[in-house]
Every structure is written in C-alpha cells, then in structure tokens.
C-alpha cells in the first residue's frame, strides 16, 4: 500500500472487521442519541406543543 506511511502495514481482514463493527456501534449510538433527544424534547414540552394557533 503506497499511501501508508513507512513502517505502517495495512489492516488484516480481522482488524478491518473489528474496526467496521466499532464504527457501526458508534453510528448506532449516535443515532440512538438523536432519537433520545427528540423523544426527551417531546416529553418535556408535553402534548400541548402540537396544539398551537397556526
């Protein structure tokens, strides 16, 4: 791999899989946080947030 610095070898398939799984876990956690903040905001504001004059 010519684009890697000297002394750094490419990842083995096992290492690449480990990194992929970890990236996926981080993505899922971030997605869960988005949902958590959305749900929390709705819960804090209450149902009346949907009943406002247009």
């Amino acid at each position, binding site marked *: 791999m010519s684009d890697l610095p000297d002394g750094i*070898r490419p*990842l*083995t398939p096992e*290492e690449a899989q*480990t990194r992929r*799984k*970890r990236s996926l*876990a981080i993505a899922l956690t971030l997605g869960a946080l988005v949902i958590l903040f959305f749900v*929390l905001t709705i*819960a804090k504001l209450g149902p009346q947030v949907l009943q406002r004059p247009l």
Partner: protein
Amino acid sequence: MTTLSNSVTADTHSFAPAVGGEVRDFFALLKPRVMVLVIFTALVGMVVSDATVNPVIAAISLLMIAVGAGASGCLNMWWDADIDALMTRTAKRPIPDGRIRPDEALSFGIVLSVGSVLILGLASNWLAAGLLAFTIVFYAVIYSMWLKRATAQNIVIGGAAGALPPVVGQAAVTGHVGIESLILFAIIFIWTPPHFWALALVKSGEYAKAGIPMMPNVAGPDSTRRQIVWYTLLLAPLGLAPVFFGFGGWLYALIGVLGGLGMLAGAVQVFRLREGESERKAAMGLFAFSILYLFLLFSALLAEQGLGLYRAVVV
C-alpha cells in the same frame, strides 16, 4: 506489552494503524452485571417515591443512571488494571488481557461519565445529576484510587457508591431526597461489608497477592468473622425499616424477617466453621445468600409499590 494485533504474522516488523478494542470488550468495561443491579435498585428508589412522572423521562433517567454506573466501573477497571492482572477472578478483564488499551478505556469512561450526568440533568433535574456525578467520583476516585489500596475499611466506606443509586433514582423523579431512599441507602450500605467480607475470607490469598488490604488480610479471619456477625445483627432489623416507615407491607415484612434470620444463620455459620472445606462453604453460602436477600427485599418493594400489592402492616 500485549498488542491488539497478536493475530498478525505476515509482517511483524511494521505496525498496524490503531485498530482499537472489540465492541463486546467495551461493553465488558461497563461491568454489565453491576449495571443490572444499579438499574434494579434505582428503579426501586423511583417506585417507592410515589411520584407522578412522565414514564419516558423516568426511563431515560434510569438509563443514564445505569450508564453513569457503567462509566464508573470502566474508570475503576482502567485504574485497577495492574492489580486485576494479578488475580485469577479479574485477569481476563479487557485491559489486563490486552484486548483494550488503557487510554481507550480512560477516554470511554470519561465520555460516558460526562454524557450520562449531562443527559440526566437535562432529562430530570440537576440534583439527580449532581448525585450521579458524586457517585461516579466517589467510586472511581475515592474508592478505587484511594481507599481500596489504603485501608481495610475500603469496602465499608466505598459501599456508599453502591448504595447511592436508589437515592439518585428518587431525586430523578421527585427533585428531592426523601427518607425512603435514605433507608434503602442504609440497607445496602450495611449489607455491603458482610457480603464482601464473606467473599474476601475465601479469596484472601488472591487479595494478598495483589496487595489489597482487605479485612481478612489486615485484621485476620477471626476478627473479620466477628465483624460480619456485628454488621448482620445491624442489618437484620434495619432491613425491616421500610415497614416502620410505611412503604414496606406484609410481603416485604415476611421477606425481611425470614431473610434477616437467614442472614443471621449464615453469619453464625461463618463465625462457627473455621476449618477446611466447611469454612469455605459457609463463607460462599453467606455470600450467595446475601445477594438473594437483597434481591428479594427490593423485589418485594417493587411488587408492592409497583404492582399494587402493598398491604400496610399495623405497627
């Protein structure tokens, strides 16, 4: 040093870019079994509070209390990696086993600590968030970094960290700390020494190897046995306090009396049997029963207050 790329054999003279640990190893850093206990006791702290709270907010609060507890467990494993490597019970944990680098664990623990406290504050209130932050600091800094290696009273004082979740739970749903959660705190706090010392009697050799001043190593097994009996004599009546304060009913009273007698019987056995296999069996018996005792006490409160089974005991 054990590296994370042990499987690499093709080119041993060059380094792989930082790969990091497996997801399951990060999960193991959170001490999932302890997290389950924390969720359980914090939930009971919420339920006995008789508060009207949005269930979504209560669930998010509970999740953050669990994540905060996991974060403190992670920081504990980061700090204790050197002594964990010396004991068979802990040698296979992710850091001493080389599956996760210490700096990864430290970053993970700090991010989760700060995140859980902030989200708990936003979801419920800042009293609960402050109490959670105090719990994390108490466990990771006061207990892990100081008490554990300094005094035989380590798990007595450090037990406060394990006893705080019901208090945080009550604060999260009510905004204050009431007598109910303080009683639950006291029960777990007094329960901790006989529970841990029973195990320490059996594992004293391991603790000695790691240089941890557990009570049997410092004061000797006989003194530890006496102290187990004293703490259990305190615990058995204290376990009935919820009945006298009106939030434990008949079911709780029954379990409290029978469980308290069981604890006393176990402690007396540990005190009496001091030789051979019977000594080990008595200690492990008390250790196992103490878990069942606490679980049943809290389950009774959950059933009575959460499922409406509460029937007052007239005292």
